[in-house]
């Protein structure tokens, strides 16, 4: 039995199957908490817990799926190119300003809140870059002494949270422009938020892709500085 489950194909097939079912449920009910990524992650965690399979065994197959995050980020350059003119006309330089402010707000609020509530230094370092895409966030965490794989989990959790509540929250606070919507989705919740933004429209998705890159770069530069200031002052 162990050998059968240890076969990487097992977790690949399981992940596809669960996501397929989760998508079918979402398209039928279209309720935000039924977000297919959230449902799939929770369902797989429950399955692993119940059957007593550890993450290492699951990830033998899982890593083949997450491997494609690399090429997928490259692919985001295509919608970005297609909407570049529109983004420039509607947003222009203001996009860079908003993204940098968002980056500082994200790092500062995450690190300070965690620290003030008594989180260990390691955990603060792991949560600080939570709004950027996984490979960037893991790289930053490593540099400032956090736990990269904990960061990966928090990053995905942030993406899911943003995809689930982001659109409703932005509507609630009265954000109307498509550029602002896309930029906020990509800035707060990276690739998962971007996937959700594409559901609203091509422009929203393209701006969100741009936000992943811009916020990733800004956060990579700013996080070590903020982390240093928080722990030295």
């Amino acid at each position, binding site marked *: 039995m162990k050998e059968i489950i240890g076969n990487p194909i097992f977790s690949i097939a399981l992940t596809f199957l669960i996501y397929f079912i989760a998508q079918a449920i979402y398209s039928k009910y279209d309720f935000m908490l039924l977000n297919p990524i959230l449902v799939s992650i929770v369902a797989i965690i429950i399955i692993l817990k119940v059957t007593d399979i550890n993450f290492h065994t699951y990830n033998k197959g899982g890593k083949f799926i997450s491997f494609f995050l690399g090429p997928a980020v490259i692919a985001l350059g295509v919608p970005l190119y297609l909407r570049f003119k529109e983004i420039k006309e509607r947003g222009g330089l203001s996009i860079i300003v908003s993204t940098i402010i968002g980056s500082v707000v994200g790092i500062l609020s995450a690190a300070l*809140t965690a620290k003030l509530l008594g989180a260990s230094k390691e955990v603060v370092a792991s949560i600080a870059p939570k709004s950027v895409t996984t490979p960037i966030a893991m790289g930053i965490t490593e540099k400032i002494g956090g736990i990269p794989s904990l960061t990966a989990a928090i990053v995905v959790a942030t993406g899911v949270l943003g995809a689930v509540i982001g659109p409703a929250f932005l509507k609630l606070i009265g954000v109307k422009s498509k550029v602002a919507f896309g930029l906020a989705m990509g800035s707060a919740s990276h690739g998962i938020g971007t996937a959700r933004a594409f559901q609203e429209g091509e422009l929203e998705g393209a701006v969100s892709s741009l936000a992943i890159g811009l916020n990733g770069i800004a956060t990579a530069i700013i996080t070590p500085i903020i982390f240093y200031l928080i722990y030295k002052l």
Partner: protein
Amino acid sequence: MIKGFTIIFVLLFIGDAVSDLLNIPIPGNVIGMVLMTIALKYKIIKLKDVKPVSDVLVKNLAFLFIPPGVGVIVYFNLIKSEFIPIVTAWVFSTLLVFAFVGKIQDRLSKRA
């Protein structure tokens, strides 16, 4: 399809190489994404060569995050012991980023 994947993986490789050689904290895939946009803009790459593959990857982007998301189980105990700070920081900071970026950009977009 093959042409599209070739272009994407070559760009990813160049991005990784640049990131490593210059020793900068920006990962190779983000550099590759920028190179993709530039290469399309200056017609070094034809849109029709990369569009089909890119559509598949972009449309299914969220799916690729499932395995790292499941990885949270490894840290259940750590998260349990620092539950309040982690969860509060996670939710509060995410909402704050939405509010700041959304509101500021909404103002600036309207003025433009």
